[in-house]
């Protein structure tokens, strides 16, 4: 079974520039998550999709971050404009979304450095 695919693996941009991350979840997984993990901290949930609908985006800085999941499969997360404090690893995860079976599978992440 293929895992969660993310690209790019690394990205370096200057502050005020834009950046986009892509995620392809495990086939058949209805739930998709984007997490931000700052060095030394736990993953922070940014947004959660159920198919192509947003379930939770309460911690997404909507003035600069946006995300979409067209057709309920792939997803993109965009930051525009980036700030220095956005430097982090951005993790995408997916799960089947069945009661009692919500194990989340994580991708390798995209390490973003804003300079």
């Amino acid at each position, binding site marked *: 079974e293929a895992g969660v695919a993310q690209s790019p693996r690394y990205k370096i941009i200057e502050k005020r520039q834009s950046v986009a991350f892509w995620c392809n979840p495990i086939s058949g997984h209805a739930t998709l998550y984007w997490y931000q993990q700052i060095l030394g*901290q736990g993953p922070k*949930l940014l947004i959660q999709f159920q198919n192509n609908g947003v379930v939770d985006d309460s911690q997404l800085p909507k003035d600069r971050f946006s995300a979409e999941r067209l057709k309920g499969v792939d997803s993109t997360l965009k930051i525009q404009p980036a700030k220095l404090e956005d430097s982090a690893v951005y993790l995408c995860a997916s799960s089947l979304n069945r009661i009692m079976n919500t194990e989340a599978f994580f991708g*390798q992440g995209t390490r973003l450095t804003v300079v």
Partner: protein
Amino acid sequence: GQQVMQIPQYQHVQEGEDFTTYCNSSTTLSNIQWYKQRPGGHPVFLIQLVKSGEVKKQKRLTFQFGEAKKNSSLHITATQTTDVGTYFCAASLYNFNKFYFGSGTKLNVKP
């Protein structure tokens, strides 16, 4: 978001010693998951606990969910160097599909 406190932040042990990390919440949890993240890697699912007082074992790992469903622990017996990494709890308040991660416990095992 909900507050999920994890302690300790760091733990250094000699190989063969035991290790325990604790996850605490001020509110009752629906369920809790545990993940392990190796240095430079991504979180990998270990277990999910749902029932009050539940205890699950995976070889040298023992997971417990408190009777009040406000805390959980992960205990590793006789640590090995392969146990090195950061252990996170991820807790859900109301349903199974919104999990908030704790700050993690970083385990270092000296051979």
